[in-house]
Each structure stands twice: as structure tokens, then as C-alpha cells.
């Protein structure tokens, strides 16, 4: 009995730090359970597979034999590296285009303009049609090239076109098609930016205007810092989406090798090279953005620092405002 009581007392006397730990673990517990149930087994299996191959498909038995699959992917396979470069190049070109277009559109749609809801629906239509079957069907019919088709002489007059000749026209229309698909693919980014913009309190803008800030200054000093958490999310999402969407040629190649030709080990190894690359990119983005991200935690740290230095910083604060 006496022991029981002491145990109870001890439980009541959990420190704040332990409590916080327990609370945190409780909140992330669904994810931990999900990890164990649906994620760890596939990911570990795929990791092991990348160092070996399946010897018996029925029991899915794996034999490990080292780094052969990786060296295969880098040095022997003729298609992996070129496709890899192609995907990386494409993503790096699309990345700034998509984000800038999305930010501009989100800002415009967030303003109090006439026909706001109509514009909003319009900008999300390609996203709503999805990257799925319907959109594939439309793309098969060449819709992306029709939108800004140079061939019908609406954008560039015929005389000029004649001067350029067929070859250049073909390239120009391909570029336009690319731009259009990039724009169509920016729906999620617009949505994320929009949600970030909406969480900015109008009072901040008001205060900035009263202090005589121009729109340009407000954009850089209020809007961008306030949406910086969404900016990070958007950066990461755009990178990941650029590398892992269904239309990606490299993923299609990995799938073809890994499943259709049943080279499970080789497919897994290529997959892991790819994940590692994306992971490093994402980590770099995180590291860069951490400095500039404006969050409540960062604010608190700053405040604490300012408080401790208060005596010395009066001059500086004066200058800042």
C-alpha cells in the first residue's frame, strides 16, 4: 500500500519537461503507429533489396550481395544517368518558374478584386482536373500545345513566322507548351501561398502603411517574412513533386526495370540513389530557410536575446524604426 502511494506521488510530480515530452509523443503517436504498420517494412525491405535481389518471388526471399546494384546504376546502365540529368535539369528550370508564377497569382487572387471567386476557380481548374486520367486524356489530344499555339498567327503574326521557318516554330511551340504545363502544374503552389497569405493579419499591413512603407517594401518586409513557413513548404513540395510525379521519365524507367522486368534489386538501388539526392536537396533547403524563417519560436528567441542586451541596443532599435 505504502509503495503504491509513493508511486502515485511520484507520478504526480512529473516535471514540466517530462510532461512536455509525453505530450509531444502522444501527439505524434499516430504517425509512429502508422510508420510501424505501413512504412517501415516497405522502406526497409526496399533498402535491403537495393543491396541484393529477390531469389524467390513467392516468399519474397532476399539474397544480399553488396553494392553491385549501385555500381550497375552508375557505371553500366546506359539510361539511368542521362535520365537522371534530364529530370534534374527539368526540375531546376521549372522550380523558379512555378513558384514565381504561383506567388504572383496567389497575391492577385488574394486581393479584393472583382470576380474574385471566378478567377480563383479559373486558376485551379487544371489542378482540379488533376494529374490523373482526365488530364492525361486531354494532354494526349495536345491541349497544352494548343493554348499558346504559335502556328495560328494569333500571338506572332504570320509574316514574322514565315521568316523564322518551321524548325524554330516547332521549338517555340514546344517552349510555349512547356510553359503552359508548368503553369497548369502550379495549382497546389498557388493554394499553399494563398493559405499563407490569408494568415497574415491586416493590422500588419495597416501599420506598415501608416509608417509610410511603399507596396514594394511591404511585399519584402511584411508579406515574405510572414509567409516564410509556407515558402519552405512550397519549396520542398515543388522539389519533391518535380522529382516524383507520375510523368517523370526516371520513375517510369525505375518502375519498368524494377517491376516489369522483375529486377527488383536494381530498381530499388536506382530508387535509393534518387531518394538520397532529393533528400539532400530538401535538407539544403531546410538549412537555408531555417535562418530566414519567421516563426513564433524564432521570435521568442529574438525577444529573449534583445531583452538581455537591452541596455546596449537602445541606439540600434531607434535606428531601425
Amino acid at each position, binding site marked *: 500500500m505504502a509503495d503504491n502511494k509513493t508511486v502515485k506521488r511520484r507520478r504526480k510530480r512529473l516535471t514540466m519537461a517530462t510532461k512536455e*515530452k509525453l505530450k509531444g509523443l502522444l501527439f*505524434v503517436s499516430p504517425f509512429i503507429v502508422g510508420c510501424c504498420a505501413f512504412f517501415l517494412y516497405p522502406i526497409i525491405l526496399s533498402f535491403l533489396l537495393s543491396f541484393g535481389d529477390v531469389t524467390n518471388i513467392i516468399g519474397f526471399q532476399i539474397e544480399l550481395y553488396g553494392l553491385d546494384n549501385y555500381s550497375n546504376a552508375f557505371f553500366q546502365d546506359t539510361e539511368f544517368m542521362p535520365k537522371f540529368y534530364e529530370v534534374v535539369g527539368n526540375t531546376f528550370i521549372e522550380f523558379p518558374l512555378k513558384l514565381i508564377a504561383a506567388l504572383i497569382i496567389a497575391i492577385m487572387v488574394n486581393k479584393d478584386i472583382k470576380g474574385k471567386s471566378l*478567377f480563383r476557380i479559373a486558376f*485551379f481548374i487544371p489542378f482540379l482536373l*488533376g494529374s490523373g*486520367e482526365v488530364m492525361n*486524356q486531354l494532354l494526349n489530344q495536345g491541349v497544352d500545345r494548343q493554348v499558346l499555339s504559335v502556328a495560328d498567327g494569333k500571338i506572332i503574326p504570320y509574316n514574322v513566322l514565315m521568316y523564322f521557318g518551321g524548325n524554330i516554330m516547332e521549338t517555340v511551340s514546344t517552349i510555349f507548351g512547356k510553359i503552359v504545363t508548368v503553369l497548369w502544374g502550379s495549382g497546389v503552389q498557388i493554394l499553399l501561398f494563398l493559405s499563407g497569405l490569408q*494568415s497574415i493579419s491586416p493590422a500588419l499591413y495597416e501599420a506598415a502603411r501608416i509608417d509610410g512603407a511603399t507596396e514594394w517594401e511591404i511585399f519584402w518586409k511584411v508579406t515574405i517574412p510572414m509567409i516564410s513557413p509556407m515558402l519552405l*513548404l512550397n519549396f520542398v513540395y515543388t522539389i519533391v513533386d518535380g522529382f516524383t510525379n507520375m510523368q517523370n521519365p526516371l520513375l517510369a524507367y525505375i518502375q519498368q526495370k524494377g517491376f516489369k522486368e522483375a529486377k527488383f534489386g536494381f530498381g530499388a538501388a536506382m530508387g535509393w540513389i534518387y531518394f538520397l539526392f532529393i533528400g539532400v536537396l530538401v535538407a539544403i533547403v531546410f538549412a537555408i530557410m531555417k535562418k530566414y524563417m519567421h516563426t513564433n519560436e524564432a521570435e521568442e528567441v529574438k525577444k529573449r536575446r534583445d531583452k538581455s542586451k537591452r541596455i546596449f541596443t537602445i541606439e540600434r532599435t531607434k535606428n531601425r524604426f
Partner: protein
Amino acid sequence: MTRANVSSQSNEQRTDSKLKRFGIRAWRYISSPARIKQLIVSAAMYILLIGLAFVFIYPFLYMFVTSLKSNSDLGNYAVQWIPSSLKFENYSIVTNVKLLNYWKYAKNTLIVTVLSTFGHIMAGSFVGYGFARFRFPFKKILFGLVMLAFIVPTTTLIVPLYITYSRLAWLDTYLPLIVPTIFGFGLNGALYIFLFRQFYLTLPKDLENAALIDGCSFFKTYWKIVFPLAQSTLVVAMVLSVVWHWNDAYEPGIYVRLTNLQFLPPRIRTIVSMANAPSEDMFDLMQQLGLDDGEDTLNNAVVMAGATLISAPVLVFFAFAQKKFIQGIERSGITGE
């Protein structure tokens, strides 16, 4: 008399000068450089908006207009936007002739979409809150796992996943599509955790601290204070989840093979293959229903009618959901942030 005259005169003069003054003021207002600049800016913005909107709306316009074309219009290059006659029959063909079986498959898709969206919202906001607010052991490793789950595409893990679900005897049910969402997995599940975490990071802690001081338990604080504050993020998460689940065809196509349990989007492929090469029983069916067989009935217009019907629910859903995007909700009620 004279007095009255004088007063009326002065009145006239006064109104005259008033008009003049008003005119001058109006002219000054219109011609002021600030005003002109504002006009030019807003005009430029609308032109840009309308131009961009055209690019974005194009696939839908193409789809919708094509779905109303008759066969002769389809072949005619002069007819791009305005069909010579509206052929609403395409819609009845695509729903009637066992091509789409719209309501049945729409119901299946709806069940999965609603349940998994619910799961994603719950899991995302709950787990995201944990990552944003608390310090606990292995936090970095766990968040690394979230990012890994986000990065690794399902296509590369499909074999082990298939094995897992077949061991659980979940194949040919909707469970593999719905259950993982409750734990923050499933279709882009990790994104929702990340999304909510980013939102909670910007949310000031003061309200939660106030609730804590007032004796609110931490779970109640989450449910009654934090969760409602995340409304704008909830709408975004809901839109993303609904749209992605509605359009998804990859995982459902692998786990769910029974025709009875099929979903709407993959049906478009059936329609396309029927339009390209109608099968024998298709001809029989068409004759039974008294339709002309061949290209006149089954053509691209019918395919596009099917596509329009498949994407219509999402469009309607979004039209309602976007009203929830309101600028600058005073979300904290705390002054002097």
C-alpha cells in the same frame, strides 16, 4: 422683392461656382498622377489576370465544348469554340450505354474520398501540432521520417505494400486506401503533417498558454482552441485531399481489382478504348437502344463528355470551398503581436 432677386441671383451664382468647383475637383481627381498610376496598375493587373485565366481555363473549355460537338463538328477545323448544334445526347450516351455507369462508380469514389480526407485532416492537424509545439526525444528522427515518407513515391514501394496488405487480407476492400490516412500516410499523407506543422509554427502560443493557466487540459486546448484556429489550413488540406483522392487511379487500381468496387477516373480509359474499337456487345447494346452504331455515336465528344462528368463533382466542390478563403481572418484575437 429686390432682396429675393438678389438672393436668387446669388443662389444661381453659388450653384454655378459649386458646379465649377466640383468640375475642377473632379478633373483634378481624375488627372492626378496618383490616380492615373492606380488606374494603369489595376488595368494591367486585370489584363494579366484575364490572360492567365484563359491559359488556366483552357483545358476545361476544350473539354466542355468538345463534349457538346456533333461528329461533323469534330472533323471541321473551322469549328473551334462554337459548335453548329449542341449535342447534349453525348452525355446520355456516356451514362446510358454501360460506358461510365456513373452513379455507381461515383458513389465508390465518394466513399473513399470522404473517409480518407477525414483521416488526413485529423492526422495532419494532430501530428503536425505535436511536431510544432513540443520537445520530445527522437523528434528530429521522426520528422526526418515524415520527410522521407513525403519524398519516397509510392510507386517504388508498391511491391512491399502490396505484400503487407495481402497479409492483412485487405485486398479488394477500401481499407488500404482509407486506414493509412488516419495515421498520416496514404496518398501524400506526410504533406498534411508538414502543412499543419508549418501553420502552427506561425501561430502565437499566447492563447494556448492562457487556456493552460485557466486549467484547460492540453488535449482540450488542442481540440477547442488550436484545431478551430487552423480553419484556413483545414480548408486547404481538405481541398488538396479531396481533389487528389478523387483523381487518383494508381494505388486504387492495384489494390482494388473487383469491377464492382472500381472508381470513376479509370473509366475514362474504358470509354477511350470503346470509342477507338467498339466491342461486339457494344454494337448490340447500341442497336438495342436504337442508336446509330459507329463513329456517329462513339467519338471524341463522348469521351470528353465522360471526362466532364468525372471532374464535375470536384469543380462543384471547389466552387463552394473557395468561399472559405477569406483574407486576413483575425485568427488570434491577440493585439500587439
